[in-house]
Structure formats: structure tokens, C-alpha cells
């Protein structure tokens, strides 16, 4: 029997995605986005969120799909927060915020359609590993790293 969870369903590049609301601190509108040369494709830039340097994630490359157009000031985004690390995940628009039945990798929305469920801790960890790969590191096997103690490596649907 599937669990019921509070999720936010959003659209990005013609596809729909869901994320558990507990990882979403707020829905924001992006400030001026500075591009970060040498950053991996999943990190589309940084912006100033009330004085904090906040990365903007592009969901595409982080789930093995094509990159979306570069984020711009005024674009909508989810502010994800995992273990004190935060990042903005760009979106086109929010569809709904609801309590929906959730399986490991998808939710069933109000109209009975399956929407893939993203896992913010894993997303942030992938972005981190991609950044470390730029430096030439292998992904750490054990970690003292900020986005740590989120074990397992479940694959996305």
C-alpha cells in the first residue's frame, strides 16, 4: 500500500516532476544568475539569495537528461535544503502542492497520472560529486562531506 506524502508537483521543459515538500524550503523567484565557468552541467549558476551565495541546479543533467536553457532572473525555482546545504532547482511553474500516494520513485497525481519523484538529497549529492569530479576526485566512498549521511544511491525513475 503506497504511503501518502506531502509533495510539490512542478513542470520543467514540458515534463512534470514531484518532490517531497519537506526538502523544499520555499518557492522563489531567481535573482540575477551568475554563470560559473568550469562548473558541471548540473550547476547552472549562482545567485544571491538574501546575502547567501546559492547555486542554481539544472535538473536535466542531474537525472541524465539534456540541459535546459540557462536560468535567468525572474525564473521560478524550488529552494531545496538538505542538511544545511541549499540550492535552487529551476522550474517553469508549480502545478500543485498536495498529499499524494507515493511509491519509491513516483507519485500518482490528482488525475491519476504517474509523476516521477525526485530525491533532493540525492540530487544535491550528485551535484556535489559532479563538482568534485571537476577537481579530479573520485566520488568519496565514505564522507566527511556536507551532503553526507544520506546513504544509499537509489536511482531515479
Amino acid at each position, binding site marked *: 500500500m503506497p504511503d501518502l506524502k506531502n509533495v510539490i508537483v512542478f513542470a520543467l521543459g514540458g515534463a512534470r516532476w514531484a518532490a517531497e515538500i519537506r526538502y523544499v524550503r520555499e518557492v522563489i523567484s531567481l535573482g540575477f544568475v551568475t554563470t560559473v565557468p568550469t562548473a558541471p552541467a548540473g550547476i547552472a549558476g549562482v545567485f544571491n539569495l538574501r546575502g547567501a551565495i546559492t547555486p542554481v541546479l539544472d535538473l536535466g543533467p542531474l537525472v541524465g537528461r539534456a540541459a535546459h536553457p540557462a536560468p535567468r532572473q525572474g525564473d521560478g525555482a524550488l529552494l531545496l535544503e538538505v542538511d544545511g546545504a541549499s540550492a535552487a532547482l529551476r522550474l517553469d511553474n508549480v502545478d500543485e502542492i498536495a498529499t499524494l500516494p507515493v511509491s519509491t520513485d513516483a507519485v500518482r497525481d490528482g488525475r491519476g497520472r504517474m509523476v516521477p519523484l525526485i530525491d533532493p538529497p540525492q540530487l544535491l549529492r550528485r551535484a556535489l560529486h559532479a563538482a568534485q569530479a571537476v*577537481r579530479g576526485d573520485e566520488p568519496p566512498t565514505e564522507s566527511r562531506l556536507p551532503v553526507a549521511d544520506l546513504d544509499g544511491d537509489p536511482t531515479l525513475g
Partner: protein
Amino acid sequence: MVSDADFDADELAMLRQLFRDEAHEALEAVTARALSAGAGAPSADSLTEMMRVTHTLKGSAGTLGLDDMVDLAHRLETALDQVRTGQLAWTARVGDQIVEIVDGVRAHVDAMNEPIAAASFADHVRALLERLAESSGDRTRATPAPAPRPARPTLSDGVPRVVDGADTTLSITPSTDLPAVDGRPLLRVEAERIDALMSSTGELLFDRTRIERRVQLLRTLARDLGRTRQALREEVGQLRAAATDAARVALEERLRQVEAGLAGQATQLAQTTAALLDETEALRHTIGDIQRGLLRTRMQTSRALFAHLARSLRAISRSAGVRVELRTSGDDTEFDKALAEQLTDPLVQLLRNAVVHGIETPDERIARGKPQVGTVRVAARHDGNLVLVELSDDGNGIDPRKLRERFVATGRWTAARAELASDDDVLAAIFEPGVSSRDDADELSGRGIGLDLVRETIARLGGEIRLTSSPGRGTTFTMRLPVSTAVTQAMLFKVHGQVYALPQVHVVETTSVEADATTVAGRHEQLPVVRLEQVLSDPTSPPAEPQRRAGVVVTYAGKGLVCTVDKVVGPREIVVRPLGPLLAPLPLYAGATISGSGKVQLILDPAALVRLAYPGSPMIDLPSPSAPSPQTLAGRALVVDDSRAIREALTAMLSREGWIVDVAEDGARAVQMAQQLRYDLVVTDLEMPRLGGFELIGRLRENRTTAATAVVIVTSRASPENRRRARDLGVRALVAKPITRRKLLEALAAR
């Protein structure tokens, strides 16, 4: 003047600086007391105190031979005494005049090192004093000062006592006994020295980040070594299974020994790395402590800032012809000195707006049922790591409705947008550049003068400003700022339309670079060129045309380079912010800063630029264990010298030639190391503790594996005797100190 015998030039300069600080505090105290009296005369105690600090100042000035200052202090003291004895009646006007006089004395003190300016300020103050005497109807002139008696310098006097000031009218409570702070000794330090320490600590932070990256790399290396050892063990195992003849068995045995040695070393490396990780963690804490400690020493209470505002308000309201009272609260709220300095101008701007455009004329106020005298409140308090500064007036407020009309009338907004915007949005828009200009004369727009600049300053300090207003009742500006700011100097430049920064300490100069140049002549050598338009390109930016470009000359760890940029923006003070965990691993950046308009600007790490300019230099970069760089290695060298500086210098020179370099601080350590690892080259000093150079070479020659190792001697004792001995030991070359790169290269080339 003071005779040369009293102080030398340095001492005199230092004493004058101390005097300047002391004078500022003393004059501040006099001003505060004069202002707090308002129209009512200051108490006798307060006057006595004003005279006392003035008198002390006179004594200090006399010690330093500052004759003008002695005279001015004397005259001021006399004027104050006349108020005390009732010869001069206190009025608000007299209060203003005294404040003006004290301001003049301050200007004189500040101009101390420019005699002409100082003298003209002194004359100005004398004129003011005479006018004061005239206004009292008392024409008796202040008597000239008696010859100053060199008093004991009282340089530690005049420190304001800390007083609780919850919503007191004006910031400084008129109390007696200013100088003592619980009888604890106080140390007076120039602010610049603390600032210099602060900026070194800022550097330390960058260094720490680099070390942490290195340690992470070492961990990976240790893990890889473990894997290699495991692979070797498996190979040896297979060899054993397949061993048929005696030679193979012997080979297997030897390999097993190598594997065992490797196992020990891998474990050691892992342990050392783990320990290093703990130590960098400890370092992180220590640096944090130092920074917090330094920040505390730079902390100021809002008292001085408020006193400055009170003075400004005085001047502004006098010229605007409006009566306004300043009420302060949170006088003891502490924040960083730099923050207080940077905050002064925006606050004065807000104050000016409040007085000129906010507070109504007395008649209007009475008609509205308000007290005739307007009130501006300024409050400061802490909220976690933030300091909250609030400035509010009880004037006519800002009407969002009128503002909407105005935005539409000036074509700034469409009618539809004005309709849709919330009142908060409308008020927020007042901070936008060009909402109004000085040309706009009406009260509403006048409110906007300089507000975009105010917001910019606050943003640069990492804070934000908000505005609330209720029409007819008043306006409140609320600023939230970090308590302290890690301000540092940086060179800003543009590449592909984006602004980047480099820490100023590593920037030597700016220059220009020809389109096809790979090196640029530096002061001492050819500097490699790093083309930032390539390094910082992203897929969306058009390919850079080869052309002559501006260049920024950078040095780091003794290496120089030139990086090309599109345009040099210039040096700026920036507030360094961490990049956050996701971006921190990117080697190119050391942090980020936020521009006045709120954009993120990336700070490049000079260490990363050096790595780009000197690829494959082991001293600068550990070869990446996962992707060994295809560098041409000259071999492995051991540098032996008891001087760390020489070791570093030789390491740098050899690294540049492609050598992997290890170091030892004496011959004994070198012998140990040479037993563990095969070296292609040993560069050694002669005189060292424990085991000297010749003894080291002797030991190397005794051992079969090291007998043929190439040896170069670097010594300050290049005697014929030593040269002969070196030749007998088969040393390749003996180089006399001081060592240069050219000499070393010649020695290496020698046969």
C-alpha cells in the same frame, strides 16, 4: 616644537597618532554633552567634565609641542568656564556654537600633519570663539594661553564609560568620571594595525581552504595506493601459483617483500592523512578563534555613530529651519568598526531625507495635532548574527497612492502595473535607481534622492533595507546587516561580460598582452600568460577573437603570471563570502562577493591560476591520482638543507624543471629517506646538524643502491679544499650560495 632629543621621528609620528585618537574621544565627549543639554544649560558637573577633558587635551598637546592646539584648548576651556560661572548665558545658540567650535578643533587635529591647513582651521576656531564671546555680550577676550607646562602625557585618558542607554535622548548620558573602565588597563592600538591583521586572517582562510583541498586529494591518493597494493598482492599470488622454477620463486619472494613494504607505507600514509585531517580541523577552529577575537577588538558600540548622527542632524535641521529631536536606543549595540564607518553615509542620507522631506513645518504639525518638534528615532539592536538598525521619523510619511500616480505620470510604470502592484511593491520601488533625481523638487520625489545609493551600500555590506510608511504618521527604514564583515581589497575585472575578482595582495599590476603572446616580460623574468577568456568560457559565450587584451599580473607562492581580461574594472573593497558546499570543490574559485546591485561575483583563486600557468609543477599541484597528467618528469630529487627558505627555493626551482622533490632538514633524515625511496638526484648543503653533507654523500656511496646517485652540493663554503673533496666523492657539481636558477641548471647539466 619638540626638540629632536625628546623623540625620534617615528616616535613622534606614533605619539601624534595617539594624540589624535585621544583628541577625537575627548572632543566627542564635549560635543555629546553640549548637544545633550539642548536649550537647558548643562549641569555644573557636566561642564566641569567638559573642562576637565579639554584641560587634559591641552596638557597632552603641550607635551607634543602642538602650540596651536594648546591655545585652542585653552580658549575653549576658558569659554566653558565662563558658562560655568554664568558669565556666558547658555542658550541653544551657544550650544550650537560650542559644537561648531569643537568640530573646528577636530578638523585642526585631523590636519595636524599639514601645517597650512591646520593653521587655517585654528584661525577659523579662534574666529568662532570670538563670535561666541561677542554673542554673550561679554567682550572680554579669552586670555592667551600661558606657556604650556609639559605635563605627564595622559594618553590613556578620555575613554568613554559604557553606559546603558535605553531610549535616552541623545546617545551619551551626561555622567562624570569618563576615563576609568573598571580600573582595567586599556591598550590603545591604531585601527589600521587591527585591519592589517584582519586582512591577513582573511588570507589565512584562503590558505586553509587550499590545504583542505590538498588533504582531500591525499586521502584519495592513500586510497589509490591501497588499491594498487591490493592489485600487486593478487598478481604476486598468481605468480606464486604459477611459479615453477627457482628463479620465479625468488622473484615472487622479492615481490612479496616489496608488497609488504608498500603495505606499511600505505597504512602510514592513510594514518598520516587522517591525522592531517584532524589537524586541519584544529586549524579551522584556531583561525575561527583568531578571527572572532580580532572582530571583537574592532567592535564599536553604536554610540559614536549616533553621536555623529546627532551632529549631522543639528547641521541639517539648522539649514532646513525645522526643529527636530533625535532619540536613540541601543547605544551599546556592538558592531564592526568597518560596518559603522560604511553605515554612516547612508544613515546621514536617510536623516537628511527625513528632515528635509519627512518632517512637516511646525504649523503643519500643529494643524495635524502633532508635537511642534519633530522626532527622528534611530535604534540599533542585535538579532542573532545580524544587527538591526532602524531609522524612523514622525513626519508626513509616504503615500503609496501618490507614488503610484507619480510612477505612471513619469512613465516609469504603466497604469496596469501601478494598479496591480501591492503597496509594499510600490514602496520598494522607491529604492530603484532614477526613481527621482535632484531636479525633482516636490516632497514626494525628493524622498528618493540617493535611496538607490543607500540600498547599494547596504547590499554591498551584505544587508538589506526595507521601508514601511503610514501616510501622515511617519516613515521607518529598517536595515539588517551582518554584525561583522570580512572586508578585503580585491582587483575586479570583466571576462565575457561577467565581473570577477582577485585578492589584491596577489595582484602586482595591470598591463596589456599581445594577441598571440604566450609570455610577457615581467620585472625579472618572462611571465606565462593565462587566457581567462578561454579558461572562463562557457558554451553560450562566443569564441574569443585573438586580439590585444588587458592583462592582470598575479603572483602567488613565488610564481608570476599574467592573465588576460576583457576589461580591468579596478580595485574595490569586497566582502568575501563562502561559495557553499556544492561549489567549494571547484578549484578555480576562492569564494564570491556580492556587488552593489546584488549580483554574485566570483573570486578567482590565484593558486589555481598558477597551476594553469605552470602545468605539471609538482610543487604547486599534486599529480591527480585518478588521472595522472602526461607530464615529462625529470625524476625524483631530494633536497637536503637545514634552512627552510633554501629548501623551499630549491624545491621551487627543481619543480619548475619537472622534478618531483622531497626535502630533508639534515643528512641523517636524508639517509633514512634515501633508503626508502630511490632518488635520481640529491641536492645537499654541507654544514647541517646531526649529519653533514660530506658524511651524507659518504653514506650514499657506501650503499649499493645509492652509490651512483647524482649529487649536487650547494654551499656557502666553496673552498678549494671542499671542491677537491667533492670531486673525490664523485659529486657532479658544487655550487656556491647564493643559489640562482641559472647556477642550478648549469650544475644539473654538468657531467
